[in-house]
């Protein structure tokens, strides 16, 4: 462990302060999107395609329009046709412009056909039933293999889509990144192993589904109150989709009920806004749970093949990684998720000089994949870490030893950082902090790795095993994504912190307040945080790519430092001492020389009312030149019922290096939550489809996310390092935790019963079949 003895003592950072929105949340105050009732609100509902692939020959809305209470019906025939992407990314988005508000064609069961605004939900639903649509059903494809086959139907044959890699062959995006000479690398290796792992359709299932309210303010500007991770991208994309000037739109993100990536997507805001504009009335829209599963976004189902070549001593010499990603009917995040399969995994083992990462993201007639916590890295690590386990076995090495031999260290780099960026080339980067070695040591101790690994325990039908995996992620997107913060001082010495950053339950409002409070020498309670309102807060790309603490946090740090400078200047005048001699802490400005002091309240009054009156305030922005990875070592213990194939995860240990945790409990919470989602991926979560592409389990009754009884004893350890480029030494923690459970559990099952599970989820059925086949 990197002992950071010299680290400055902090009074707010590193403390488990009370969450700034905690009280309103435990009281159930009306702070969520749908908790406002506006007079005259219409209910918006969407008509979904019953076919996986079809042309709309005609739409007859006359009967529906005649229904009393129907205010408006929109479809491709009465809206402007403007191509855009629903992916909430920086501009220009690296996702193809292959979506329209409404199109002449539908591309999956659940695709948009039309939308209704009516006086009530009942009327809206009745109106949907009365819309007559004539379809010309087209042949459909339900897997990348079918979609790539010769003569496959072309899903995006529209001429006005842009940014598609090869529409004729249904390829939304492709990557091919060679480093060194991969063939030479394998031929020079002593041992070569290969593993192909597959992840199915899975869904984020935030407990609050997508929802949005579009209305007009007193001046007739469109306000979109919405459950989003990306308010500023919503404003830009809705403006484009509806052909509106951006200044006519205000987007407000209130409290939101979880996102995990699915709310990095514009799936309702464009329709609600269009309905509001057409009717001139407020419109509320909310996805049913079924729509949330089918029409929101999913993780990209993916098959990843990893081939590793290593020297006898365990040093990796060549890594090939091939990913075949299913992006569904539209290409949201197709290229970037695909890129991250390699870019967030390969640098972890930077010893191999020969690399080849290549893959395709393929259109199919299934639901649309998008951003999901882990963002491709989850898919990549499943295959990479299962292959590493296999390699360790072939080499006769302990899996931890193999990782220790190969993982990146502080001061080291990987060519991948420069080769793969966010839809374009990346930036060269040296890793400045890495405590993975310590994480491995701590995690191994906690789980009792060496004694448990040395013998397989068997009790009756139950077989026990332990497995491990490692992972890293990033902290924001280098050179592209920007966060900004404004801090204003009130005359009583309290502050307003305005950030575009988007707290989706992660606690970022609290963390950003802590950073400001630390610099300004006040408790968090003296800082009022207002976030995510495109009229009132400065720009921020939003909550994705593990960016808020690092990117937005640095912006807050810079703004706070400038405000502190201004405070010291005012205080210097009051104390008649130079600012260099003054210190700000405990809500006081104190002279280091004379001990004289003024309170922040006095400074505030002075600046506001007394002399040289001005607003003490600063705005700062930050675009990360680097994206320091957090690292995590995962360990788990499983029990496998050899008669039925039932797998129970009994214990899970994760030791993570997220730099200095600004708020340890919130950081732990991110890790614990991510691990539990990963356990869901590993054991139960999978959307099933009929042979016509209809989802069969779009409900929480049959799509099982973990309940409190499914979660094992989870221990998370935050192993401190200090990231010199991060605010107070911090790096990210939001995503990395989801990358470990799939491979760690698969490797533990292998240890227990000697069969490798390479297709998630590891259902009793799949485990038993594997036991009968290979056991």
């Amino acid at each position, binding site marked *: 462990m990197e002992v950071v003895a010299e680290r400055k003592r902090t009074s707010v950072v590193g403390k488990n302060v009370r969450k700034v929105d905690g009280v309103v949340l435990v009281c159930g105050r009306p702070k969520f999107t749908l908790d406002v009732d506006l007079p005259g609100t219409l209910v918006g509902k969407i008509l979904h395609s019953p076919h996986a692939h079809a042309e709309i020959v005609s739409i007859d809305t006359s009967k529906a329009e005649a229904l009393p209470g129907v205010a408006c019906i929109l479809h491709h025939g009465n809206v402007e046709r403007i191509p855009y992407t629903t992916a909430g990314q920086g501009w220009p988005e690296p996702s193809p412009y292959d979506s329209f508000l409404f199109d002449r064609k539908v591309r999956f069961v659940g695709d948009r056909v039309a939308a209704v605004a009516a006086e009530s939900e009942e009327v809206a639903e009745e109106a949907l039933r009365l819309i007559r649509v004539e379809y010309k059903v087209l042949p459909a494809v339900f897997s990348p293999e079918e979609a790539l086959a010769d003569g496959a139907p072309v899903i995006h044959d529209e001429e006005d889509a842009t940014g598609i890699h090869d529409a004729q062959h249904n390829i939304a995006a492709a990557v091919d990144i060679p480093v060194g000479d991969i063939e030479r690398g394998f031929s020079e290796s002593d041992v070569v192993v290969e593993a192909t792992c597959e992840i199915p359709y899975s869904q984020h299932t935030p407990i609050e589904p997508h929802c949005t309210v579009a209305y007009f303010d007193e001046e007739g500007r469109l306000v979109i109150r919405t459950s989003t991770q990306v308010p500023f991208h919503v404003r830009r994309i809705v403006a484009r989709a509806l052909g509106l000037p951006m200044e006519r739109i205000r987007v407000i993100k209130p409290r939101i009920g979880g996102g995990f990536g699915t709310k990095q997507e514009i799936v309702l805001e464009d329709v609600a806004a269009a309905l509001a504009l057409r009717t001139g009335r407020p419109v509320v829209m909310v996805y049913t749970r079924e729509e949330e599963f089918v029409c929101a976004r999913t993780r990209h189902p993916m098959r990843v093949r990893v081939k590793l070549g290593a020297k006898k001593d365990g040093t990796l010499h060549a890594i090939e990684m091939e990913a075949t990603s299913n992006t569904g009917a539209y290409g949201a995040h197709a290229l970037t998720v695909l890129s991250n399969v390699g870019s967030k995994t390969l640098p972890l083992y930077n010893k191999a000089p020969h690399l080849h990462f290549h893959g395709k993201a393929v259109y199919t007639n299934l639901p649309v994949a998008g951003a999901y916590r882990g963002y491709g890295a989850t898919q990549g690590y499943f295959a990479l870490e299962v292959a590493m386990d296999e390699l360790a076995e072939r080499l006769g090495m302990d899996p931890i030893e193999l990782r220790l031999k190969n993982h990146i260290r502080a001061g080291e780099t990987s060519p991948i950082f420069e080769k793969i960026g966010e839809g374009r080339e990346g930036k060269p980067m040296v890793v400045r902090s890495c405590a993975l070695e310590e994480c491995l040591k701590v995690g191994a101790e906690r789980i009792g790795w060496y004694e448990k690994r040395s013998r397989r325990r068997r009790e009756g039908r139950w077989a026990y095993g332990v497995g491990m995996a490692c992972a890293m992620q990033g902290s924001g997107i280098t050179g592209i994504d920007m966060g900004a913060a404004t801090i204003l001082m009130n005359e009583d010495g309290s502050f307003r912190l305005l950030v575009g950053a988007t707290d989706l339950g992660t606690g970022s409002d609290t963390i950003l307040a802590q950073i400001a409070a630390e610099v300004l020498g006040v408790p968090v309670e003296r800082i009022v945080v207002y976030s995510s309102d495109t009229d009132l807060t400065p720009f921020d790309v939003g909550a994705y790519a593990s960016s808020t603490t690092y990117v937005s946090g640095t912006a807050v740090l810079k703004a706070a430092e400038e405000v502190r400078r201004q405070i010291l200047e005012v205080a210097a005048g009051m104390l008649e001492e130079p600012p260099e001699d003054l210190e700000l802490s405990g809500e006081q400005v104190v002279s280091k020389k004379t001990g004289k002091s003024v309170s922040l309240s006095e400074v505030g009054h002075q600046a506001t009312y007394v002399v040289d009156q001005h607003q003490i305030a600063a705005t700062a922005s930050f675009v990360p030149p680097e994206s320091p990875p957090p690292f995590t070592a995962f360990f788990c213990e499983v029990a496998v019922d050899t*008669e*039925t194939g039932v797998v129970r995860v009994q214990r899970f240990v994760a030791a993570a290096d997220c730099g200095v945790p600004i708020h340890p409990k919130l950081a732990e919470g991110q890790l614990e939550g991510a691990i539990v989602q990963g356990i869901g991926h590993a054991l139960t979560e999978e959307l099933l489809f009929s042979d016509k592409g209809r989802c069969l389990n779009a409900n929480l009754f049959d799509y099982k996310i973990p309940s409190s009884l*499914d979660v094992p004893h989870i221990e998370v350890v935050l192993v401190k390092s200090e990231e010199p480029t991060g605010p107070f030494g911090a790096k990210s923690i939001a995503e990395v935790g989801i990358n470990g459970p799939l491979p760690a559990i698969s490797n533990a099952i292998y240890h227990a019963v000697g069969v490798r599970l390479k297709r998630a989820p590891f259902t009793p059925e799949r485990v038993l079949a594997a036991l009968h086949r290979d056991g």
Partner: protein
Amino acid sequence: MRLRGIKRFHYARDVEEALSLLSAYQGRAALLAGGVDLARAARGDLEGLIDITGMGLSYVREEGGGLRIGATTTLTGILENKAAQGYLGGFFCEVLRQVAAPPLRNMATLGGAVVSAHPWADIPTALVALGAEVRWSDEKGEHRASVEELWQGQFRKIFRNAVLTEIRLPAWEGAFAFEKLSRSACDIALLNCACGLGIEDGKIAWARVAVGATPRRGRRLTWLEDFLVGNQPGEGLWREVRDRVEAQVEVSSDRRASGAWRKAVVGPLVARTLKRAAEKMGDA
């Protein structure tokens, strides 16, 4: 949520009132107890709802070692009842604790479980193994039948015009056990099994075995029960059970599990349930 088309909500005071309301609506009304299934099924053809939870049918009574349970008793009501807790060493409560989660058990009634009789449900399998009897009333009078008879017949048709009033669980000199396989801890069964055994002089005197969610509703394996009687419980017997069940029990696929997997696990499941019942006998 609004159940479309509902025009009236009635609070029936007794069985006669419920029956006369049912008949007045001519099939366009439904009886409502916990409402768990009704609200989820979202039938579009209903005009009237008849709440039957205020008719005095929420009770658990012990009678000669068996239980009489009013049809509108919630699962929680049973779980919190002393007599139910004592019934067969807590066997029935053990089953109920594996059904849904507490807030749903606060709503769901035993009568609802009988009337809905979902094939994947745990309660029907347990009731079949126990040889439960149910009572209902219609315009012709009171009726009774074992749950097995009931579910083999046109029970959904019966309950369109009848009120289920009571479920009786008989007394048994022996022990029962229940096991289920599911996708997660809080889930319906992919396969479940309830078994009861009486052991005298080291030999099985009687046996009850029911398997459910095959994916069909729980039903008894009478051939296995016959085979078990007279045998000595032990690993050898359980192995034999396992092989026979695997060879003879009919299972098939649904979207939740394949027939092949059910085939592979039904033997071990029945064997382990029987074994646990036998162990309980040993403890008693």
